[in-house]
């Protein structure tokens, strides 16, 4: 697995420069809690023989707003809508309520302090 660090401002340009429709496909978005911060990861994989998984990651504060990659990778809306509910983070143009019921406390995967 190849890990590439990026920042919130350069995320979209990094992914746009990397992502080629014929070569790669977007797999999933993931987030892991690292102490007070959250590490957000975007996983891509290529179609070639002996495939390589590429992971873009960045460390954010829980309250920060993450740019959406929907205009580069069309099918990313499912992953974004899921992560917003499960980790209680903010992604632009993504509403809550896709996974959990509205009356449910969001962010069940966050550690209880």
């Amino acid at each position, binding site marked *: 697995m190849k890990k590439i660090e990026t920042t919130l401002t350069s995320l979209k340009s990094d992914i746009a420069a990397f992502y080629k429709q014929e070569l790669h496909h977007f797999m999933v978005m993931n987030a892991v809690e690292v102490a007070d911060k959250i590490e957000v990861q975007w996983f891509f994989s290529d179609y070639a023989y002996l495939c390589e998984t590429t992971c873009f990651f960045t460390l954010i504060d829980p309250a920060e707003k993450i740019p959406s990659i929907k205009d580069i990778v069309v099918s990313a809306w499912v992953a974004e809508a899921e992560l917003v509910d499960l980790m209680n983070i903010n992604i632009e143009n993504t509403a809550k309520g896709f996974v*959990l*019921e509205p009356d*449910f406390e969001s962010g*069940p995967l966050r550690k209880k302090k």
Partner: protein
Amino acid sequence: MKLASYRKKSPWILHYNAGGCNGCDIEILACLSPKYDIERFGMINTGNPKQSDILLVTGPVTKRNRERLVEIYAQMPEPKVVIACGACASTGGVFRGMYNCEGGIDQYIPVDVYVCGCGTRPEQIIDGVVQALAILETKTKELEESVRLKKEAVKEKQQLNRRNIADEIKPAFT
């Protein structure tokens, strides 16, 4: 000829997955297939709650499914029998205590037959359904008796009941 005898010979099944892993659902599908052939009991899998007599539920109840489950149960006409298929439908199974799950469907609707196993074998499902047929028969009888007003009316102190004044009600058939 009475409707009850038809119902016993040909109960229609409604299947709902309330959040399980699909394992029990494909075994229910296997029951319909030629090897196990549940149709020899006259059973047909139907999609309409208003036409069905037996509700087969699989899976622990997830939060988004609970209203749907109660709604489907409420839409079925009396008499009706509920079968909980599999360990998670009976008690919650391995999913018991997960944040979006409830433990078992009997927290929301009354269950008549519990079928064990993870996943349930087709033989067990058929056995459960045959037991449900006997329950369906007793339920039908109870329902018909209450319609004929054979039972004595409820009597409480200080209550002026119409039946205290009126004649004694004779059983409809003797």
